[in-house]
């Protein structure tokens, strides 16, 4: 059961998981001198502003993914890169600490998944391009076919997957790739109803809003830094404000994020410092409450069918697009070098998902430790003091805590790597030595 010359592939979902799968399948097929026919089913129009044209996320492309894409020859054009980030500023209710990029270079991009925030259509033509649209166009340029239809049914015919859409004849394929976003409930149901016992991953809700500041105000109040808030607000786990050209993107993670939590967040003095003076919270900003993956899917593959991206396994909280990239690469390699039977996916594709899965377990543990910093002021003060001290001594010295925070916020390293940095004797000694009351005051 292997893809051969003339094989056909259906990809349901035209987000990064789907388009990268198409790009890598076509690329490897070309190197192997095989002709593949790939259809991408995606009804969403990325040239629409607001949530209808958007795949709803914070829109940050991690340092590691930017490097991996470049190594692969995929360069993001300036029209797609809305802004760049070279520092993170960590705000607690007492003080702030800046963590600069290890290299003085712009290697994190902020992007719009769709055409832009709701309301920006009044300025047509927009000077930027959707990230998802860019990848879709690249897949098409590589030879994939974009079918702008919603899939209505998935079935089997003599063991081959069949894709049906309204007013279209059903199409039989050699391989079916499920690259549906976690917010596409109907499409996920279709895969769950197919015969490979697939079950969608566990999710929680996030809150994402695009706040219009204007370019000058964004530069003045945010600069090229992502502002991360560890505040002691009930139900709030993590919040970040990211510069995005004329906009600031707010992402809030936690359980039960409602209007009250959002108002408490905006009322915090540390947050107000990141807002333009006299700026009022818009009554209805472009916002969404997308699901985000916090647990893995069950049985993400079967004979001639495989799930990729969020619908399979995704890195906890950060770098979902990076996870989709890794899975899409491994999927292409498995399907073309080994085969498309469930046993092939289990042997060659599943290890990538499994390593993400194990790493996420460690991630859950690290985020639980994050609560210690939030709820114990003494520990929080010690942490901020260590970050300040590392910044002062940064030239030529190892900065394990800053590096651990950098990697956590950017999603640039595995949680295993981050745990290793946090457990270094130097980090622990620095924290413990500052834990005595009075030792960690400002100097």
């Amino acid at each position, binding site marked *: 059961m292997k893809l051969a010359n003339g094989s056909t592939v259906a990809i349901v979902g035209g987000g990064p998981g789907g388009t990268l799968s198409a790009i*890598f399948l076509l*690329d*490897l097929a070309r*190197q192997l001198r095989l002709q593949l026919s790939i259809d991408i089913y995606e009804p969403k129009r990325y040239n629409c502003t607001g949530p209808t044209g958007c795949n709803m996320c914070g829109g940050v492309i991690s340092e*590691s993914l*930017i*490097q*991996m894409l*470049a*190594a*692969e*020859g995929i*360069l*993001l054009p*300036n029209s797609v*890169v*809305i*802004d*760049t980030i070279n520092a993170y500023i960590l705000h607690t209710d007492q003080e702030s600490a800046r963590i600069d990029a290890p*290299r*003085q*270079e*712009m*290697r994190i*991009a902020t992007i719009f998944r769709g055409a832009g925030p709701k*309301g*920006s259509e*009044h*300025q047509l033509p*927009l*000077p930027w391009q959707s990230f998802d649209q860019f990848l879709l166009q690249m897949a098409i340029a590589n030879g994939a076919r974009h079918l702008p239809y919603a899939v209505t049914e998935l079935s089997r015919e003599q063991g081959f997957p069949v894709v049906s859409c309204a007013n279209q004849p059903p199409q039989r394929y050699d391989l079916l790739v499920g690259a549906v976003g976690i917010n596409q409930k109907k499409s996920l149901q279709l895969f769950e109803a197919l015969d490979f016992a697939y079950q969608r991953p566990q999710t929680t809700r996030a809150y994402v809003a695009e706040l*219009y500041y*204007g*370019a000058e105000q*964004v*530069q003045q109040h945010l600069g*090229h830094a992502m502002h991360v808030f560890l505040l002691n607000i009930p139900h709030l786990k993590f919040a970040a404000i990211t510069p995005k*050209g*004329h906009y600031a993107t707010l992402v809030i993670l936690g359980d039960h994020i409602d209007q009250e939590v959002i108002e408490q967040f905006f009322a915090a003095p540390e947050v107000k410092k990141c807002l333009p003076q006299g700026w009022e919270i818009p009554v209805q900003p472009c916002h969404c409450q997308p699901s985000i993956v916090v647990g893995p899917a069950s049985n993400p593959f079967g004979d001639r069918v495989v799930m990729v991206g969020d619908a399979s396994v995704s890195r906890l909280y950060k770098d979902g697009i990076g996870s989709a990239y*890794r899975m899409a*690469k*491994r999927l*292409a*390699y498995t399907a073309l*070098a080994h085969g498309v039977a469930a046993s092939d996916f289990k042997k060659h594709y599943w290890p*990538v998902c499994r390593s993400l899965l194990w790493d996420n377990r460690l991630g859950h543990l690290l985020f639980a430790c994050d609560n210690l910093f939030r709820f114990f002021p003494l520990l929080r003060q010690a942490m901020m003091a260590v970050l300040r001290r590392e910044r002062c001594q940064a030239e030529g010295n190892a900065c394990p805590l800053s590096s651990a925070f950098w990697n956590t916020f950017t999603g640039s390293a595995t949680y295993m790597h981050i745990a290793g940095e946090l457990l270094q004797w130097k980090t622990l000694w620095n924290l413990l030595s500052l834990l005595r009351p009075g030792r960690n005051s400002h100097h």
Partner: protein
Amino acid sequence: MLFRNSVAQGLGKLYAAGEIIFRQGDPADCCYAILEGQVEMSYENKDACWLSLEILEKNEVFGTTSLFGDMPRILTARAVVDSRLLTIDKSGFLQWIQEDPTLALRVLLSMANRSHRLIEQIVQLQQNLTGRDNHVTT
């Protein structure tokens, strides 16, 4: 709302025309992808004479050879025009190559192509030298 002034300054780092990116003999801890511009790879001999070997264009990745086997840089890289480059860390690059056979294949292909180009240059140089010797003899 006005979106006329773009604030995006682009990814990577800017190198001015003529700026050295790395020198022959420098330790190698990264490779580079050319986002914009051109980069010249050259060799400096004992008499401090520069031999230009190739000009690399947008989308090419260079500086990978020294990453394998902990070698110092064997060539000098210089921006020909104002260029924007993205640094790719050695640790990540080697890890991705181990995890991803298709990336390893891409890197091998790129190295093979570059090696072909260099062999062609050597052959051409040898032919030129032979032609000059013959010309001198006659």
